[in-house]
């Protein structure tokens, strides 16, 4: 495991620039604490001060896959910190002419980019870009591999909504009127919390990042879905730190244990011909009002988006009082500010 190798320290030299975030595996628990602490500090800063943090710095957003939330929040995060941003997408660049990822990265570096935020359909593309350019690279989602900033924003959302208290880093809930929460991030922060991740685990980088991060903070992660979307190999996500990851095929049984229910979209674009009976899927795995009331009346409901309403989740759940889906987006903006500041090596 990568973080195990890192923990051994001096012998393994990372081939990636400091501040890169390619996978949650690279993050120690202390790193997570530091990122969330910085998130809080940046959030509390007044807007003018914040706009000077990355003044004069240049961030490139390199997007090979469509994105609404992630792209916009990284862009707004960078701009709110005063950085200059440039967006390069595969549809409107020399990528269309066959330029390689390496050469695209080198070109951005030559144009002054100091950090590249990359979204790519190929698992592992951020490692390649980080090695080729030597720049800090923030993985904004690579294939079916990782989406580390999503796991961090999901963590922050949980800390806020589950009102987990501690002492060091400030996490303010975006729920109007809710008390501001102070969370101490350590290996037991989420002890006793069960997070059910349900749906298309196989194709989900969000599931991988969460399943590899949350247990290291003490959470029990239960993966739930049919065999086609959740093979036994998913247990390979177990880092050996924290409670062991479990697979539960029965959604109702999983929900009855859930403090958090994280729903995932079926990624039809990655199904690659695999047959799936959608009607049966909806019957067994859709999170609807009836199921939620019966099995998990107080669980927090999360979804990384995009949602397919009527498929994995229904309106009354997505828009209901247990839902934290919009807050996730807001926390995304906050966490990504901290990741950009960290990537560019600025103290804030």
């Amino acid at each position: 495991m990568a973080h195990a190798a890192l923990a051994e320290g001096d012998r393994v030299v990372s081939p990636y620039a400091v501040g890169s975030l390619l996978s949650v595996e690279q993050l120690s628990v202390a790193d997570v604490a530091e990122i969330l602490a910085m998130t809080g500090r940046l959030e509390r800063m007044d807007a003018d001060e914040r706009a000077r943090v990355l003044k004069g710095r240049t961030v490139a957003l390199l997007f090979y896959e469509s994105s609404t939330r992630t792209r916009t929040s990284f862009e707004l995060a960078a701009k709110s910190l005063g950085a200059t941003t440039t967006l390069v997408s595969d549809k409107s660049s020399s990528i269309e002419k066959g330029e390689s990822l390496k050469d695209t990265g080198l070109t951005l570096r030559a144009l002054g980019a100091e950090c590249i935020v990359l979204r790519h359909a190929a698992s592992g593309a951020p490692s390649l870009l980080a090695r080729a350019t030597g720049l800090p690279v923030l993985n904004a989602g690579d294939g079916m591999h990782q989406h580390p900033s999503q796991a961090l924003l999901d963590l922050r959302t949980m800390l806020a909504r589950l009102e987990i208290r501690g002492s060091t880093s400030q996490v303010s809930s975006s729920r109007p009127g809710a008390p501001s929460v102070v969370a101490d991030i350590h290996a037991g922060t989420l002890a006793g919390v069960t997070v059910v991740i349900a749906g298309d685990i196989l194709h989900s980088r969000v599931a991988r990042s969460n399943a590899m991060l949350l247990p290291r903070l003490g959470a029990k992660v239960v993966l739930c879905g049919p065999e086609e979307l959740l093979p036994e190999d998913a247990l390979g996500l177990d880092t050996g730190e924290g409670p062991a990851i479990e697979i539960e095929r029965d959604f109702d049984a999983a929900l009855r244990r859930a403090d958090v229910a994280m729903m995932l979209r079926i990624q039809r674009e990655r199904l690659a011909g695999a047959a799936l009976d959608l009607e049966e899927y909806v019957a067994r795995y859709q999170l609807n009002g009836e199921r939620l009331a019966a099995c998990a009346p107080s669980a927090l409901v999360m979804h990384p988006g995009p949602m397919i309403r009527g498929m994995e989740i229904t309106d009354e759940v997505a828009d209901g009082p247990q839902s934290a889906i919009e807050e996730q987006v807001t926390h995304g903006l906050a966490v990504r500010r901290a990741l950009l500041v960290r990537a560019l090596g600025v103290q804030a």
Partner: protein
Amino acid sequence: MSELLILNGRVVDPAQGTDEACDVLVRDGRVAAIEPPGRFTGLSNSLPNELQMDAAGCVVAPGLIDIHVHLREPGQTHKETIATGTAAAAAGGFTTVVAMPNTTPVNDSVAGLEWMLAPERQSQVNLLAMPAATLGSMGREITDYAALVEAGAVGFTDDGKPVLEDEVMRAALLAAARLGVPVSQHAEDTRMTGGCSMNAGRVAFRLGLRGMPVEAESRIVERDLRLLREIERESRARPHLHVQHVSTARALAAIREAKAQGLHVTCEAAPHHFTLTEDAVGDYSAGEYCTNAKMNPPLRAEADRLAVVEALLDGTIDCIATDHAPHASHEKEVEFERAPNGITGLETALGLALRVLHREHGMALGRVIALMSAQPAGVIGLKQRGSLRVGSYADVVVFDAGVEWKYRAVASRSKSRNTPFDGAEMVGRVRATIGRGAILRQ
């Protein structure tokens, strides 16, 4: 008359059961005599120094034979040429290599085969070839086996792709059987491996890569063995199936059983499959998504690696073959799923075989040499090679079996550097390679 003396070495020739201190006299490209040390003193006094090789402390063995290499010529000479690939072969102790047909164009005709084997290609070692089993390696219509064997073909293969259709494979096996050559199968059920870039399992899941199941290999092997049984039952033909680069316990179990039943099946294993596992793909220190750990069949799980070692030890696997597959750095330095399959292997095969099989798993030195000389010669029916028997071609490798060293990809004779073994520990270093009595490398 040309002579060469190889003095003071330990001659290990498994085909003759030889393992003793001997001097070797080579005359006119053939082994003329092997005698206890001192017998050639008279001759030694009269021969000039450059025609005497002091092999003290070294093993003197039959030149190594690799029945599975990709030399990329014609058509892909930015990766390798016949001259550079065979120079790498000589550096690795190989004196005979068999070129695969997946060049551009595919080697599926007598003209193509003759072009490849022509002296103008400047092969540095004895060059043989397996032309395509089907036209264009498209898997539909078999090539002209009789004419190709007449022109020197030592077997047929669509390597890189399987012959998928039962009827086409049956026709290939029958046609090759009549000529006494093997059909060499790349065992992969490509209906199960679309979009896959490594071994299926937990590592692939963690890395978010689609995985090739072990059944993709074993199903084709089992299908081919069924065809062998049917053909033997229905006709008097006795076809020879050779299974390339076997990588799974499941396929090896099927081959072991078929051998016990007396079917004519042979198989090979590649050094990377007995040395590395799928973990090499996600090795953090080497950089994750290491495309130099990407090949087909892929690196498998530890249990499969150990099954390959066991099958080498118990004789189920007939020979070691490198599947030397050079690619330019710009082709490998891309997203993992887009990178081409394959790694170089000619210069690291002996060092890995001695390290893993001899040192770590206790295989006798003579067995390692047999797996890389006499036995591959047997698979393709090579006469007068693979042994130092008097009268054989003087193809010889002289190596220091005890020396430990680190392979350096930058020093490779190959045009390409795509190896996962840059900096890896090797045991045994080639000191000289002799082909038909000529010193190819010293």
